[in-house]
């Protein structure tokens, strides 16, 4: 039998763009098919994937739009394959329909989002304006798992992890990157998950298993439409209860210098690198500044943040969006009396210097 070679043996230090990193990570994670539709800044994920896929026995389908890319991904998952897709901006808008089906039916789809400017077509470059949509889009309840990456190592680690989280918990899982991470090059260590003792959660078919339905086994009948309110309520309550119960295992965050922090910087994704840099500079100057970064923006590390926030004098939420992170923070901290300030630049980057400046102005 033909055995496709392993994409990576052991581990390797490389210098590449984020999109290339995602393609490598998906390959290393054993993703079996990518379904996709062109959109900047996501394109090169497909470009690298299509170059590598045949070498490792993987597949690709270019669909007619993102609605189709999302629904074919749903199909790939139903067939029991590690299937994924990637998109951005208006493509992410279209993805919300298939992702709501995945949410309803608890299908472990993986979607990599490379945020670009919005609303509408806006810019092809960068933003953090797809936070709300990626966490809560569609006509649903946000029963999703969203990892917000801050750079290339994250992109590699969390793309692999996304497949495992998805298949372990059976909720649609998202890697929330952005155009900067997609397009810039950084040093990163790519590895064979096995070499790090990461075992991949096996994918299982929902449909098309052996045996004649109705003879050898029961047929599988998967529905997402319900006749009565009570029927639906039960399904949602059950799914929500599962989601809430697994959330503590899934939640991830990063923090530094929070113990005595007067000003706590809160940011996610690539902006957290500016926040972290600013925190370090300000500490050198004697300002008591801390840094908190949710890695899972959904489920959100609300309890952990509250504990830190209650000890601080002021919270500064920093983001490349107009208050999307701030809304989640405010909601998570309801009742906490610490002042919440924000630094918002929708669709534009945030630098270390700007954050330093902003924090100084708070004193």
């Amino acid at each position, binding site marked *: 039998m033909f055995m496709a070679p392993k994409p990576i043996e052991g581990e390797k230090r490389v210098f590449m763009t984020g999109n290339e990193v995602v393609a490598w990570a998906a390959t290393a994670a054993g993703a079996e098919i990518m*379904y996709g539709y062109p959109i900047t800044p996501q394109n090169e994920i497909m470009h690298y994937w299509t170059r590598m896929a045949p070498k490792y026995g993987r*597949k690709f*389908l270019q669909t007619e739009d993102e609605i189709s890319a999302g629904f*074919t991904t749903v199909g790939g998952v139903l067939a029991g394959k590690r299937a994924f897709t990637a998109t951005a901006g208006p493509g992410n808008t279209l993805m919300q329909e298939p992702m709501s089906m995945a949410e309803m039916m608890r299908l472990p789809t993986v979607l990599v989002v490379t945020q670009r400017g919005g609303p509408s077509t806006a810019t092809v470059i960068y933003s953090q304006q797809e936070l709300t949509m990626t966490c809560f889009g569609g006509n649903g309840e946000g029963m999703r798992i969203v990892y917000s990456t801050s750079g290339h190592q994250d992109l590699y680690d969390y793309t692999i992890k996304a497949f495992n989280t998805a298949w372990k918990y059976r909720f649609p899982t998202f890697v929330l990157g952005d155009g900067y991470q997609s397009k810039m090059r950084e040093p990163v260590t790519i590895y064979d998950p096995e070499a790090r003792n990461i075992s991949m959660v096996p994918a299982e078919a929902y449909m098309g298993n052996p045996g004649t*339905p*109705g003879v050898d086994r029961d047929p599988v009948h998967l529905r*997402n*439409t319900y006749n009565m309110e009570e029927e639906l309520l039960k399904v949602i309550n059950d799914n929500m209860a599962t989601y809430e119960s697994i959330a503590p295992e899934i939640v991830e965050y990063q923090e530094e210098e929070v113990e005595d922090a007067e000003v706590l910087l809160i940011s996610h994704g690539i902006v957290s690198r500016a926040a972290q840099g600013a925190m370090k500079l300000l500490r050198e100057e004697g300002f008591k500044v801390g840094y908190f970064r949710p890695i899972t923006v959904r489920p959100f590390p609300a309890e952990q943040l509250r504990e830190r926030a209650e000890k601080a004098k002021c919270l500064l939420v920093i983001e490349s969006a107009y208050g999307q992170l701030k809304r989640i923070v405010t909601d998570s901290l309801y009742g906490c009396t610490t002042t919440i300030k924000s630094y918002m630049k929708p669709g534009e980057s945030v630098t270390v210097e700007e954050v330093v400046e902003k924090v100084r102005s708070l004193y």
Partner: protein
Amino acid sequence: MSVQPQMPRTWRTETKPHKFCPGCGHPLVLKALSWAIEELEIEEKVVFGCDIGCSLLAWDFFNLDSVQTHHGRTTPVITGIKRVRPDLVGVAYMGDGGGYAIGSQHLVNSAMRNEKVTVILVNNTQYGMTGGQMAPTTLPNQKTETTPYGRSVEETGLPTKGPEMVASISSEGSYVARGTVSNVRQLKKYIKRALEAQLNGNFSFIEALSLCPTNWRTNAEETWKFLEDQMSKYFTVGEFKTPAQKKEG
């Protein structure tokens, strides 16, 4: 003594009586599909996807692995399955709104790409599930809830002729036909050929002229007359594309 007609093997008795309205054409199309599957002995391989529309009522109709999808999105779901499980036989089942309006891009592009799936579309000249609005297949001057004075061709164009369109864009080897519930035997034959085309690695598309007495607001006689005198006049029943006959010798 009454003799009960024999039902196809995939006919799931546990979920019968089915939930379609009395006199609806959907169950006839589904029965034709069951017979075709049984004749080809492919029950073990078929995955069935139903759209949102009255077709959603078919979600537990068969002894077949089945999935209910979204309005217009059954073709990509089945395509997604088939791309990674080429050993299966994928059937996407939908209404005329689902296939020709909201999901038309999927129909066109799956045909263009020669996806190895079979799309079965039920033409009842309007949106059944939502209460009888105009569909792409509504006949000129036909009254619906959103064309209460009759469909104006000037304002809304001509009814979609799906098989004619799909036949003109699909690859050699694909199969395209329009059947009718007034001739279930022929419809079954068409569906069987469609499934065979898929088994041979090609796309296939069947439109079935159907009945919707509920939204047509017709009694049995008028229902039949509408199908036979009006729909069948406008929508030609027959095969529009068949795999080229292999030349002898």
